[in-house]
C-alpha cells in the first residue's frame, strides 16, 4: 500500500506515500508502529492515570481483587474441598497463579473493548490502530507490579525463599502478555464488526479461568493430556509462575513449549487479522 519514491529536487521530506484501496492480507507495518511509539506511551499513561485518579481504591483494587479471591479459594477449595496443591500451602499456590491471571484477564477484557471504546478517535484521527489494544495491555502492567509486590510479601509470610528459577519470571510474564494481546486483538476486531461479542467476553474469560490451572494443579492430569493441556497458553504461564517463584513442579518441559507456541500463534494470527480488517474500522465502528 505504501511506496516510497525518492525525488531529488524537493527540499522537504521526499517520500511519496500512495493512498489506495488495499486487498487481502497486509504487512504488519511495525516500522510505523515504532514511529508512533510516543503515542503508545501517552495512551498507556492516560489509561493508568485515569484509572488511578478516579478512585481512592483505584490502586488498591489491583491488590484487593486477587487477594480476596485467594482468601475465598483457600477457604473453599483449599480447606473444604481439599484440592491438592503440589505440596505448597494453598493460599500462596493460588495467589501465585491469580497474579498473572489478573494481568491477563484485565488486559484481555480491556483490549477487547479498546477499539469500540475509542470509536470517536478512530473516526477522526489517523494512527496505526494497533496502538490502542497494545496500550491497554501495557497499562495493566502497573497493576501487575502492585499485585506482584503483595505476592512477594505473601511469600515472606509463608517463609518461601526465592531461588534462581525466579530469573525466568519475566519470560513467563511476556508469555502472558503475548497471549493477552493475541486474544485481545481477535476480540477487539470481532467486537467492531459484531457488537454482541462484548457480552461474550466476560463469559469467555470466565471459561478460560476454569480451563487454567489456578485453583487446581495441572499435575492432576496424566501425560499426554498434560502436554496437550498446554495449548491453553495461560496454563503454561501459571504453572511456570509457580515453578519460578515457589519451586513447585518440574522444570519447564514440553507443556511449556506447547503453551509458548500456542501463544505465538494467537499473537501472529491476531496481528494479521487485525491489519486485514483495519481499513474497515473507521467506517463501521
Amino acid at each position: 500500500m505504501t511506496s516510497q519514491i525518492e525525488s531529488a529536487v524537493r527540499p522537504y521530506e521526499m517520500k511519496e506515500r500512495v493512498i489506495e484501496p488495499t486487498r487481502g492480507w497486509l504487512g504488519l507495518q511495525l516500522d510505523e508502529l515504532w514511529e508512533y511509539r510516543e503515542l503508545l506511551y501517552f495512551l498507556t499513561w492516560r489509561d493508568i492515570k485515569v484509572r488511578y485518579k478516579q478512585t481512592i481504591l483505584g490502586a488498591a483494587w489491583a491488590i484487593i481483587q486477587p487477594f480476596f479471591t485467594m482468601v475465598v479459594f483457600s477457604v473453599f477449595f483449599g480447606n473444604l474441598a481439599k484440592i491438592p496443591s503440589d505440596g505448597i500451602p494453598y493460599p500462596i499456590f493460588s495467589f501465585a497463579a491469580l497474579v498473572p491471571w489478573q494481568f491477563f484477564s484485565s488486559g484481555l477484557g480491556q483490549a477487547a473493548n479498546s477499539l469500540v471504546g475509542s470509536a470517536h478517535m478512530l473516526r477522526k484521527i489517523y494512527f496505526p490502530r494497533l496502538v490502542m489494544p497494545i496500550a491497554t495491555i501495557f497499562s495493566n502492567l502497573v497493576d501487575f507490579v502492585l499485585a506482584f509486590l503483595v505476592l512477594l510479601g505473601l511469600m515472606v509470610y509463608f517463609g518461601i525463599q526465592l531461588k534462581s528459577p525466579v530469573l525466568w519470571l519475566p519470560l513467563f510474564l511476556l508469555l502472558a502478555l503475548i497471549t493477552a494481546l493475541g486474544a485481545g486483538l481477535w476480540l477487539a476486531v470481532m467486537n467492531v464488526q459484531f457488537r454482541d461479542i462484548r457480552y461474550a467476553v466476560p463469559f469467555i474469560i470466565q471459561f478460560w479461568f476454569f480451563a487454567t490451572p489456578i485453583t487446581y494443579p495441572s499435575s492432576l492430569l496424566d501425560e499426554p493430556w498434560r502436554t496437550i493441556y498446554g495449548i491453553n497458553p495461560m496454563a503454561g504461564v501459571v504453572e511456570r509462575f509457580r515453578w519460578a517463584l515457589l519451586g513447585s513442579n518440574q522444570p519447564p518441559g514440553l507443556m511449556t513449549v506447547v503453551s509458548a507456541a500456542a501463544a505465538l500463534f494467537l499473537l501472529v494470527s491476531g496481528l494479521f487479522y487485525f491489519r486485514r480488517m483495519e481499513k474497515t474500522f473507521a467506517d463501521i465502528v
Partner: protein
Amino acid sequence: MPEYVLRAENLGKKYYIGRKEKYKTFRESLIQAVTAPVERAVQVMKGRSQHVSGLNQEMWALRGVNFEIRQGDVVGIIGRNGAGKSTLLKILSRITEPSTGRARVRGRVGSLLEVGTGFHPELTGRENIYLNGAILGMRKAEIDRKFDEIVDFAETEAFLDTPVKHYSSGMYVRLAFAVAAHLEPEILLVDEVLAVGDISFQKKCLGKMGDVARTGRTVLFVSHNMAAISSLCSRAFLLDRGELVFEGDVPDAINRYMESTLSACQTPLRQRSDRQGDGRLRFTEVTFINGTGQPVNAAVSGQPLTALLKYETSDGRSARNVDMDLAFYGALGQLLFLCKVQLARGNFEVLPPQGVVACRIPRFPLTPGRYRYKLWCQVNRVTADRIEDAGVLPVEAGDFYGSGYLPNKNPEGIVMVDHEWELVDPKVTLALDQVRSAG
C-alpha cells in the same frame, strides 16, 4: 518533474446503505451463513439474481475526483452538506480507505478534523495538552517547546492544573483549538473547525490559520464560512454530490456554489415550501419590470427597477397593518441593502385579500453580478411569510453615475451611492483648518 504535494487520481469512496445499523451481531452472521446459501439457491431458481444480503444500495460519497495541489497552496473546499468534503479529508488523512483510485501525498500530513479529540475529562489541562498533542502527531519534544505558546493562545493559564471536566465549554474549546493550531505538518487538512468559541476567539483562530497559510504550508480547508474561505484561500474546489464540479479562483467557486444552492429557486413562488411565518399573507409571484413597464429578467445598474410582488391572504379577507421587506444579499451571504415598507412610507393599513404590491427603486444601486433576494412580510406584527432564497436577480452594467463609466464585474456586490468629487479651493482649506484648530 512533478511539483505536486498532493495529487488525487480518480479517487472514489463507496458506502453501502440500506441497513439500519452499520454493524451486525455475531448471532445474525451465524444464522446468515447458514441461510444465505439457501436463499440464494431459491432466488436462482426463481430466476432472479439479486443481491441477497441486507445491504442493497451503494452510495458513492466521492467519485472520480482528480486534482493536483502544489506546495504552499491554500485550497478551500466548499460544497453542500453531504457533498463529500469530509470524506475527502478522511481519505487523505488515511482514516478511511478509498474504494477506487489513489492519492499521492508528499510530506507529513496533519489533520484537524475535530477539535479536542482524545481529551479526557479527568485529566488536567496540562495533561490533556500533551495527550491531545501526541494524538495529533506531535512529538513530546515538540509539545514541550510549544507548551507556553499553546497555553498563551488558549488563555487558560490559571486553570492548567484543573481537570478539564471543570472547564467551561468555551475554555475547553479554546484549549483544544490552541493545541491543534500549533500543529506544524507540511500539509494541513482542516475540517470546519473554525467555528469555535466566541467572536474574539474565532478571529484569533482565523488569524492563526492565516499565519499558517502564510508560512508556505499547504492547507486544505473545508468550511461553510465563505468569508473565511475568501480571506484565507488562494484556490477553491467545489464538491457536489461526491464530484469535483469546479476548481479555480475563490470568487468564481463561491459564485458557482451560491448558484447551486439557489437552484431550489426554480420552483414557482406559489409552490415554495421553504418558507416561514404563519402564512396569513403569502407571496405568490415576483416579476421585475423596468422604467418603461416592461418585464425584465435582469436589472441594470442605475436604471429604474420595480419589483411586482403578487400576494394572497390565506383566509380570503383583507390584511391589516402590513409590512414587507425586499432584501438583496451578496455572494458571501451579507445583506447589501433592504427595501422596507415601514421605513419608506409606513405600513400598509389595509391590503385587499389578493393583489400586487410594487417596490420601485429609481436607480438600482448594485454593480453587475447575481444577487439573491429575500422576501418577508408581517401582518399585525406577526411574521406572515418569509422566504430566504426567494430568487436570484442578475444585474447588468449600467451608467449609474451618468459619467459614461461603467463599473466592471469584479468586485461585485458593491452598493453604489450618489456622490460627487472635486478639488477643494485652497482658500476654503485654509478656512477649514482655522475652524478646526479653534474648535
